[in-house]
């Protein structure tokens, strides 16, 4: 019973938020949720698949640009048409980049994803597509309309928030299903021992590529809503600094859990907000905090991390959850 009690309470709080909090906070939480979707999607590749990608911001930004490009002037775009198109574009980009990058391993993979991500950045930065380095506006938020009657208009912050919340929950559901499925277990096996997994008969390349594409599509989902929320897209959306920032969220939240990166996103975005309000040199502070987090993790806090941020015991084979040594420390 307790298993569903906590998530249910959290969802109830999330639903209640727009009725209790000022619009600013509703928008802020929407933004954090969008980054949470991005971080959870990225973690399918990084934490579950062992693929440290530095190009997910490119998928995120690409999807945002698709919305900008498909939005008709000053009218609202149709969500039912543009969202699948944006996610499909992100997925196709992930398929092409993943197909090439997965020919490599480890540090090569990181460098190749970073380079191809920057290629997409330059594509939007240097060419005239959607305003070049100046970016482009999404003048009206997308809507769902049938025969001219608006069923859903994202222009209202509360409506936008609820749509994002719905997609957030859907993302968690899909990722949880994937991670627990035979696919997810095979992916974890390939991460932990590629050679053995291959000799058992798992097609490692295809397995990882599928995970990478799904992960890219989820990043696209997040990018679509980010573009819709800000009403603006710029090449910086695709830049690798965002990819690295999202990796920090993943690391804060815990690599082996589905919802951990969401918590990481909430923590880091909240932190950024506080830092921006309190110092001009917030990037310096953020850099120092990132370094401190990494050093803390290296120093052994890592074992504590999943206890604090919830690597779920029913998550797939996980270092901490399965280790009797860790349990020994608990008891």
């Amino acid at each position, binding site marked *: 019973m307790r298993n569903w009690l906590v998530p249910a309470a959290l969802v109830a709080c999330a639903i209640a938020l727009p009725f209790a909090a000022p619009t600013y906070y509703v928008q802020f939480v929407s933004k954090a949720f969008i980054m949470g979707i991005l971080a959870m999607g990225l973690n399918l590749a990084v934490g579950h698949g062992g693929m440290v990608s530095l190009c997910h911001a490119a998928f995120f930004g690409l999807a945002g640009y698709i919305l900008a490009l498909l939005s008709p002037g000053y009218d609202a775009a149709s969500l039912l048409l543009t969202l699948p198109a944006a996610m499909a574009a992100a997925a196709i980009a992930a398929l092409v980049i993943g197909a090439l990058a997965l020919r490599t391993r480890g540090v090569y993979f990181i460098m190749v994803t970073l380079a191809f991500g920057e290629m997409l950045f330059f594509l939007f930065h240097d060419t005239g597509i959607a305003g070049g380095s100046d970016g482009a506006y999404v003048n009206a938020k997308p809507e769902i309309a049938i025969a001219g009657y608006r069923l859903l208009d994202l222009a209202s912050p509360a409506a936008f928030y609820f749509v994002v919340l719905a997609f957030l929950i859907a993302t968690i559901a899909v990722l949880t299903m994937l991670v627990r499925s035979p696919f997810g277990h095979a992916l974890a096996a390939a991460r932990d021992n590629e050679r053995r997994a291959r000799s058992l008969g798992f097609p490692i390349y295809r397995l990882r590529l599928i995970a990478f594409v799904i992960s890219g599509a989820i990043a696209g989902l997040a990018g679509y809503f980010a573009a819709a929320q800000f009403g603006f897209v710029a090449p910086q959306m695709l830049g690798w600094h965002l990819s690295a*920032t999202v990796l920090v969220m993943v690391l804060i939240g815990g690599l082996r859990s589905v919802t951990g990166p969401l918590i990481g996103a909430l923590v880091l975005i909240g932190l950024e907000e506080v830092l921006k309000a309190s110092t001009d040199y917030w990037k310096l502070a953020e850099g120092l905090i990132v370094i401190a987090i990494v050093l803390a993790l290296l120093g052994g806090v890592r074992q504590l991390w999943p206890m604090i941020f919830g690597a779920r015991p029913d998550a797939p084979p996980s270092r901490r959850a399965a280790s009797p040594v860790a349990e020994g420390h608990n008891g």
Partner: protein
Amino acid sequence: MDLVTFGVQLLNAVQYGMVLFLVASGLTLVFGILGVINLAHGAFYMLGAYLAYWIAAYTGSFWIAMVAGVAIAFVVGLVLESVFIRRLYGRDHLVQVLLSFGLILVIDEVREILFGKDVHSVAPPAWLAGSIQLTDNLSYPVYRLAICGFCMIVAALIFLVITRTKIGMIVRAGAENREMTRVLGIRFDVVNRYVFAVGIALAALGGIVIAPISTVFPGMGDGMLILSFVVVVLGGIGSVAGAAVGALLIGLTDTFGKVFFPSVSSILIYVLMAMVLLWRPNGILGRREV
């Protein structure tokens, strides 16, 4: 394209490639020997350029700026290795990526505090400031030629050190067989510290020599980091010779790409990288794994 124009472009390509090589060889050495992927490498390139601007502005001498800039970067490298980088040996690449990302944020902000975010230019030394008249209406800056020559000397030095000296043997042994060096009783911690500092100093040196022909601007490190990565992916990681091949390939592709395919020139090097990945995923001079 007539022969003279072609020659000029070729010189440009080689000069660009040589600077790339300086920076990328530092990156590939650090990875090959320490096993650490350092995303902050580009930040030191940027820092080198700003130091060149700043010191040259105070002292009026590019040469002082060059020597002092490299020395500062070297010392910063020693300090960073002993405080942060040594904790990353043998760790997940993810942790290395994020710690060096944190360093980038810090370095960027420190640069902004010290130097601001304005774009600057640096004057080359007076006796290198002229141009050589090639034809009636075509000339070539002496400084660019000097860069070619200087970088070739540095490259030759790097190769000499790696192939001929005891330190180079240690470096090669480290890259190829960590266990063996441990058995030989080599002070790994000391070698590591200096290799990292040299790597950083090479990045800064690249930034310093490029400063007079490029502008000095905040985002220059990011662009160079990506290019260095492409160089390393093309050449094969840990291989200095591979870095040379990769750097020259990019120099040629980029320079002639801008001449022949100006509309798509910015993505040509990535197309090149994709082709190399399809052909030899471990790089042109990288070891083939089965």
